[in-house]
């Protein structure tokens, strides 16, 4: 009997993504961000998280969302990757999802290729699809593009 997965669910565009709850340090509102020169476009800059400098990645830009709206629902997911804290800006983050590991299916083949191999699975929770992602891969150097688009169309096709 597989254990339940505990995920922090967050939204980017229309999709819900999930990362293991153990990786998430905390979720904070978006404060003033100090931008850093020379950084890739999806790096928003750095913030002061209670005395620690934490770099901020705009996950929406990272996923190639075209329309980025700033509103009060935006959150920063502070996660720990390779023992370093990184903040991820997401459209909204509010729920903790529990789902049996059995309900997670391996990602469609298309994700294995190229830039999209950070999708570790697609979970079905009631009527929703949750895209499970591996943060280490997302935060590696290199460009990733338009997950939002590809994911939406592929998932649409899959459902």
């Amino acid at each position, binding site marked *: 009997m597989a254990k339940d997965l505990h995920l922090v669910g967050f939204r980017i565009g229309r999709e819900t993504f999930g990362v293991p709850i153990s990786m998430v340090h905390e979720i904070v509102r978006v404060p*003033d961000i100090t*931008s850093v*020169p*020379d950084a890739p476009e999806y790096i928003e800059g750095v913030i*002061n998280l209670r005395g620690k400098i934490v770099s901020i990645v705009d996950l929406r830009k990272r996923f190639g969302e075209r329309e980025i709206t700033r509103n009060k629902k935006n959150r920063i997911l502070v996660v720990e990757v390779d023992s370093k804290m990184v903040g991820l800006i997401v459209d909204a983050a509010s729920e903790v999802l529990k789902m049996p590991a059995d309900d997670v299916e391996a990602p469609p083949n298309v994700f294995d290729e190229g830039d999209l191999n950070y999708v570790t699975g697609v979970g079905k929770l009631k009527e929703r699809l949750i895209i499970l992602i591996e943060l280490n891969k997302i935060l590696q150097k290199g460009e990733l593009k338009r997950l939002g688009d590809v994911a939406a169309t592929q998932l649409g096709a899959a459902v």
Partner: protein
Amino acid sequence: MSFFSEERASELKDLFFESATELLQALNEEGLDLEKHPGDPEVVRQVRRTVHTLKGDSAACGYTELSALAHELEDALTPELAKQHGVKVAEVVLSAADTFQNMLNAYRANTPAPTGDRVFAAIHALIRKPALVPSPNAVSGIVTESAPAKPRFEWSEYEKMVMTDAVSRGLKVLQLALTIDPNCVVRVVALQMIKTAFSDLGTVLVVVPEEGSPLDKVEVITAALASSFDEEYIARKCKIPAVISEVFVERYTAPAAEAASTNGAGGAQHAEEDALNLAPEQNVPHQEPISEADSFSTSSLSTAPESTLRVDAERIDAVLNLVGELIIGKSMLTQTINEFDKKFAKDPLRAKFADALAYQARVLTDLQKSVMKVRMVPVEQLFRRFPRVVRDVSKACGKEVHLEVHGQATDLDKSILDVLAEPMAHLVRNAIGHGIESPEERLAAGKLKIGTIKLDAYHQGNNIVIEVSDDGRGIDRQKVLAKAIERGIVTQEETARMTDGEALNLIFHPGLSTAEEITSVSGRGVGMDIVKSVLERLKGSVVIDSKVGQGSTFYLKVPLTLAIIKALMFRVVDRMYAVPLGSVMEITRAMETEIHRVDQHEVIKLRDQVLTLVRLNRLANSTSKQKKIFIVVIAVNDRKFGLVVDKLIGEEELVIKALDDHLVATELVSGASILGDGTVVLILNVNSVVARLGRSNISDDLRAGASA
């Protein structure tokens, strides 16, 4: 160690490695000392003390090879032997130190430890005896059963030494024999109770059996106390009902011969020794040097409070971070009070708030300073490894070199100190390898036969300068230049225009060594390159001063600390940046209309000098439309540049936090800092900023910068 949990044991081992490293350092120093004063009984005793502690510590961690060798060495080392064999003993001690080091490295790497057979053999050769049976000298819980009427005290060499030492310092030393009540149930508790009783009475010098040794068969506990109480009082205090049945107290007097030999041999050299000996042992009123007084050391049963503490640097950083948080909290309070002021200007509570806040601010500042101080360590920690380096290298080169050390007490940030060790070692080796001439050459040049290497450290403003100087042949400018041309580093024409300083700086070029041949010590031309790059990384500099025939001096200039800098803060467009105040030459105002363009550079005339401008707004890929601008004049490698900024904010001491995350790492920024109000300010690396933005055209560059 079955009685420790895994975690505890590994913690213990970490502690052991740390303290063992220090002990080995001390052993190296003592070995050198012994070489200088062969047969000095005082030094021999110091060596024994160090080896003894090492033995105890390693045995406690289960490192049998090390403890066996240490045991052997401790046993063999007697003042008599040292007198008999002189310098050879020092040789053995030093090679044992090396073997210990190898063993430690092996333990650390979890590989089988070397056996140290060579050292064993050397020790045996010294004492010319087959391997010793475990000697009664070992302080391992051997108790002599003696008649209750008048027990005999059988102290080991080491214990006697401790006691004699105490007596010679004018303390009243008492030896005690306590017979444990045969009906006493828990003997471990008995020992503990007795020790508690002792600690109220005076300083415990020795207790046999030691803590941790089996007590089942022990009937008598013997101990030596340095105490000011009289014998009767002590006897009464120690007689714990149902635990101790019999107490015998006697005053200990040092054996006359021993005391005499100490004074006779040690007296004359004592002053000199004090000056030379870098280890803090002589200042500590108790048998173990500070550095060895580790809490886990099984051989240290003393109750004297420890005056040093080993703390993980990370923990200090954590405290520092919290202090930073407090400061942010303070400014939040200040803001709130200002608002409160506006609303209730007449409220009597207002003044109370303000007072409390001012008080808190003051304490905070002190707190921050104290935490910063914790990170500072004396340069001595760096210097003390050099006597051994000098000895080994000078021996290898067949030269005679004397090391002079000054300014050991100068404090420096620990992180800088650690990094400086390598470049300094290169400089010292170079100085001996290339700088100091052979004894014959020196005599022919009319110099003293023995060369001198000098290490010095002192403050200079916000910097620490470390000097490494020798009185050797100096660096020959022509030779350096010839070599540089040969290697194609510079051209003939270029050399003609070079100043002396520039010519000497060529030696920092990788692959340039003026040594005619490559030796094990130097000559590969890598060393100076390392010196240069390390200092650049530390935001320091290195300057050479050399006179042919008289010697060379290297000045290593490093910032006092990497953690705090004084910085000038300013605003460009809507972003805040800071540059180290040390690089700021002056600040001036100008109008946009005064800016001229020359060959794709923007320049301005400042007091008859042409100043190249660097537009920082290109960092943010935006343009400012201000007519009036501020220009911060900075010096980079002897050249001046003007940074164009919109608004000056002021200078402040910034606590630097590294921006080493690969996501945001950029050479343009050397770090970030959090201001009192919680905003993050970036500290610019002026060298890179000027290199990147100073050169190229403005509008094209904007795009290039954006895509980079």
